[in-house]
């Protein structure tokens, strides 16, 4: 009869129907493209800005954004609409590199901003474009325990005890969990211990971690709602925020701690394309004003503005030894040493998984 894929005599009628069908499909696609495209029209009396951020900043931005748009409208007689996207820091970074139209990014790790820089979307030197090395808010790592702290967990050291079950997100997927890991590591190396000891210590700690949820939010859920584990490591601000939402549990902030600094940057290539650089930069600057800093403080971040920091100093337990990512060698080294494939974290995991 006839064979697969062979169609010797083209049929006009069938062809026409096919064409109609294809054109119908194309119309659908073009229409949807048109709907998508009309988002990016910036005129004189209306300007649009897209903020792409990691998840935990959301509560703060919900308060800050209306304040900014109001201020901008008064000064420039122009309406600003700020579209927002919140997700894991790694996921957001990937999306921006692949073409998500972000004008301003607020990410968990400087490493992530550097990746966008490497992709050519942000010009080098973004750290100097905004005050305070482009760090608009910071936090530290905290240990949340059960009611009354039955296992008496106060320090990093306590996490290695037998019978202590610890919940932390997976450093492979969660920016926050990388900070947690670095806090654990630094608690040894920044107090005089060597790297071998730090490796032994962190391995011991992760042996006590029965679950590695995908991100900080899920680790909270596992701890609070599913009541797994005795102690949860999380951002201090996330813990405070959870407390504001009714999940009140005791927490301690270890005295040796890492300064979790979340960078913010304007995505140069995108603001030039959308012609909204002015408002994007104004927005970034606005985040450093006392007004915005207070909002960050309200949802648990440690403010970077000195006067605001003084106002809320009672809200936060003091830290004796505070170290930064720089003290651990900077992000490039950290990535290579700890989180790359077959690096320290992978080795710890396979040691645990196989035992």
């Amino acid at each position, binding site marked *: 009869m006839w064979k697969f894929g062979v169609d010797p005599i083209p*049929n006009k009628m069938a062809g*026409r129907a096919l064409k109609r069908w294809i054109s119908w499909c194309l119309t659908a696609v073009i229409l949807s493209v048109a709907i998508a495209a009309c988002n990016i029209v910036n005129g004189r009396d209306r300007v649009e800005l897209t903020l792409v951020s990691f998840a935990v900043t959301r509560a703060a931005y919900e308060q800050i954004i209306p304040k900014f748009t109001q201020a901008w409208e008064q000064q420039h007689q122009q309406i600003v609409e700020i579209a927002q996207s919140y997700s894991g820091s790694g996921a957001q970074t*990937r999306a921006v590199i692949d073409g998500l139209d972000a004008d301003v990014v607020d990410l968990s790790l400087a490493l992530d901003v550097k990746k966008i820089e490497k992709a050519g979307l942000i010009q080098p030197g973004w750290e100097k474009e905004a005050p305070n090395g482009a760090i608009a808010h910071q936090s530290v790592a905290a240990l949340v325990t059960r009611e009354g702290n039955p296992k008496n967990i106060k320090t990093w050291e306590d996490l290695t005890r037998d019978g202590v079950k610890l919940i932390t997100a997976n450093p492979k997927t969660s920016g926050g969990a990388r900070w947690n890991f670095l806090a654990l590591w630094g608690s040894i190396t920044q107090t005089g211990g060597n790297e071998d000891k730090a490796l032994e210590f962190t391995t011991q700690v992760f042996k006590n971690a029965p679950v*590695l*949820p995908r991100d900080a939010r*899920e680790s909270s859920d596992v701890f609070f709602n*599913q009541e797994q584990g005795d102690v949860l490591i999380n951002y201090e601000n996330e813990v405070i925020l959870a407390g504001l939402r009714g999940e009140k549990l005791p927490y301690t902030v270890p005295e040796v701690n890492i300064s979790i600094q979340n960078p913010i940057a304007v995505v140069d290539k995108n603001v030039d394309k959308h012609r909204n650089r002015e408002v994007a930069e104004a927005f970034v600057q606005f985040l450093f004003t006392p007004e915005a800093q207070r909002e960050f403080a309200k949802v648990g971040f440690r403010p970077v503005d000195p006067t605001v920091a003084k106002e809320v100093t009672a809200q936060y337990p003091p830290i004796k030894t505070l170290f930064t990512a720089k003290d651990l060698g900077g992000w490039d080294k950290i990535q290579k040493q700890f989180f790359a494939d077959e690096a320290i974290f992978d080795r710890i995991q396979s040691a645990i*998984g*196989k035992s």
Partner: protein
Amino acid sequence: MSSTTINRSPISKPKSLLAKISQVSLPWRITLGYLTIMLLLPVAALLAKASTEKPSDFWRIATTPVALSTYEITFVTALVAALINGVFGVLVAWVLVRYDFPFKRFIDAAIDLPFALPTAVAGLTLATVYSENGWIGSLLAPLGIKVAFTRLGVGMAMIFITLPFVVRTLQPVLQEMEKDIEEAAWSLGASHWQTFWRVILPPLVPALLTGVALGFARAVGEYGSVVIVASNIPFKDLIASVLIIQRLEQYDYSGATVIGTVLLAISLLILLVINLLQAWGKKYET
């Protein structure tokens, strides 16, 4: 709307042949065209990306101990889940098609819930219900069975999300099946068991296999729900999809594509074998 009819074909002599071809060509073209643009092109992009790795690098990334363990966990767990659903799917489909009982419509409708619920919600609710202090988990805990945050939990999530496949592929066939034959078998004195094995099951086998294969393939690819019910610890219950997302979130595209390609190749191979089995079975039958 009858412009696709063949009557107006200008050439009249070899009409029967022409009719056959013209009748064939439109669905053929749509099938092949759509497959090419929507399916083969994206797959080609994936393979092209994976092939930018040197073969030795490809092999190294694809066979790291972590990756190997995720394949084993993913495929074995998915297979078990699909088989369990195969057995119970027959039961459920049979009951829904053949019997009348209260709330039947409601139960029938609920079969599709696993599709309708976002997978993240599915994972969340399974983790709650099967955790040590959940409704079902608390009953299992005294027996020493832990479901949430173990490999059992992964299997549970896979059973949940693939439940509709077997039921929904069997239902239409059962509906079309003549009741007379079974009744004839019964009245001829065959036992229920005999009737089931000899009369009812054979015509169901192709659809059953399809359902199990679809469920299996879906379970292999599942991400949203598993990531929540599992503890995601390598060598214990980390599945391949979660590993891919981990790579992706680190912007490690080559790592993600290599594991994605391996996953694709293995599942495709399994599906191919099942489809061949089915084709062979059909030939044997007639």
